[in-house]
């Protein structure tokens, strides 16, 4: 379990560093480079909440 949560928590950090440097296509009205960044922030939230759900440390501390 420990290994899985390392992976799920690191994916968003690394993903956000792959900048796709282009204006088109526009997504949700935003230039692609901006949309891409926002998407990764949202994914970070998702991945960290999953990590939190799986993290055995939360149970040990009860």
């Amino acid at each position, binding site marked *: 379990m420990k290994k899985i949560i390392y992976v799920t*928590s*690191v994916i*968003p*950090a690394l*993903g*956000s*560093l792959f*900048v796709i*440097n*282009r*204006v088109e296509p*526009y997504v*949700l*009205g*935003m*230039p692609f*480079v*901006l949309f891409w*960044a*926002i998407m*990764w*922030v*949202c994914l*970070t*939230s998702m991945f*960290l*909440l999953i*990590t*939190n759900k799986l*993290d055995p*440390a*939360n149970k040990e*501390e009860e």
Partner: protein
Amino acid sequence: MNAALLVILFFLGLCMWLGLQARKGKNMSLEQWAVGGRGFGGVLIFFLIAGEMFTTYTFLGASGGAYRSGIPPALYAFNCFYFVIAYWLLPPIWKYAKKNNVISQSDFYDKKYNSPALGVLVAVISVISIIPYLIMQLKGLGIIVSETSYGTISPNMAIVVGVIAITIYVTASGMHGVAWTAIIKDIMILAVVVFMGIYFPLHYYGGLQPMFEAIDTAKQGFLIFPEQGLSISWFISATVMTALAFYMFPHMLAGVFSAKSPKSLRWNAGIMPIYQVIIIFSLFIGFSAILQVPNLQGPDADLALFKMAKMSFDPWFVGVIGASGAMAALIPSSLVLTATATILSKNIYKVWKPNTTDDQLARVSRMLVPVIALVTLYFTFNGGESIFTLYLMAYSFMAQLFPALFFSLWKKNPVTVQGAFAGMIVGILIVIYSTTSGTTIATLFPSLPQVIKDLDVGLAVLLINIAVTLGVSAATRKPAIKVEEENREVTELGKLVK
């Protein structure tokens, strides 16, 4: 007296009332005052730590950056590393702090390395970094209030009144006051920024995409990273450096210590990114100003949001925006005041007078609040350029505290107290040198590829810091008993220095 001013004064009064109300039923011991008795659950911690993302930056810097330079500063506002680091780093810090009764950031180093002298060094570095940060928040406050009161209140007047207000409730309620006012501040900012971020693009351009298309046509290359300067490699290195420095700030760690359990910190790390997304609305405001108020030069670019607001809304609503902007400056400042008073009393005053009891220390901390406020005011009005230079260095300074903290969380800490000292001091000296002399990787090694030349200097310094820390540690590592003696010597040295 206009409508805008009335609204701003009303919210200032509300903040003070809430801040004073927050201490009801609490016996203000040092732990209660400095870290809220380590009793804040998920929601309060969220507003306290996540709220730190909504400062004057949301109103001035973010929209101003997008207005001035387009995509690079805009994307810099989003930092996924903050949260991943928060998830893994903050719970172990919290656990150690709880077990060893740590109440301030420099206290953590003092106890981990069993060296009050290291605590003093960290306290000094932190105060030098954090006072300029405080001053920049106050200058922001002055600009925001004088803009939105249509000039009826001068910036200096606004700063003085604001500082008096937070000094009163911080002295009385400490961390409790900060946490409760943080909630109302965030709700206000959220409402105001989201509304304007949607309204301006729709009203002036007929939507987001038409707005960005218009900007792309008018200003070629404004919506992507350039080949050099603020390039992708600058973005990546600056992102990582800022994230490492972010939690080293004394007020951030004070927020962490006031959590009730590590669980709330982990949950918080998962929810915070959603909050950061809201800054996008602030960026939309900045982008919308590019073609509407095109001639803001230099520092005036930071006024983009307020120029747009005054052009579009009635005075009373401009007042609401001003009130949220004022809170965006004042609440983080009150957190900084609390944390600064704590490190000064606990890690400098107490090292100087070791016999002080916790009750006396609580009184000293609270008495220090007006003193720090006065010193800050003095430098706000008389500081000049040097304050701005210090402000630029603040993040790089705080990043230098990272290695010693990070390695101390390992099961077997590879860093000795000498190593920690050496790494921090070398790091700080290089940061000062490179900032004041304008040295960057590009000026040192002009022949390197552009990708390396654009790297953030702070990150390079951090690598040198880690090398020095580990190198000196390896050279000074001794059997356990000798380390004890060594530490005692350093403690004595710390007293002499003081």
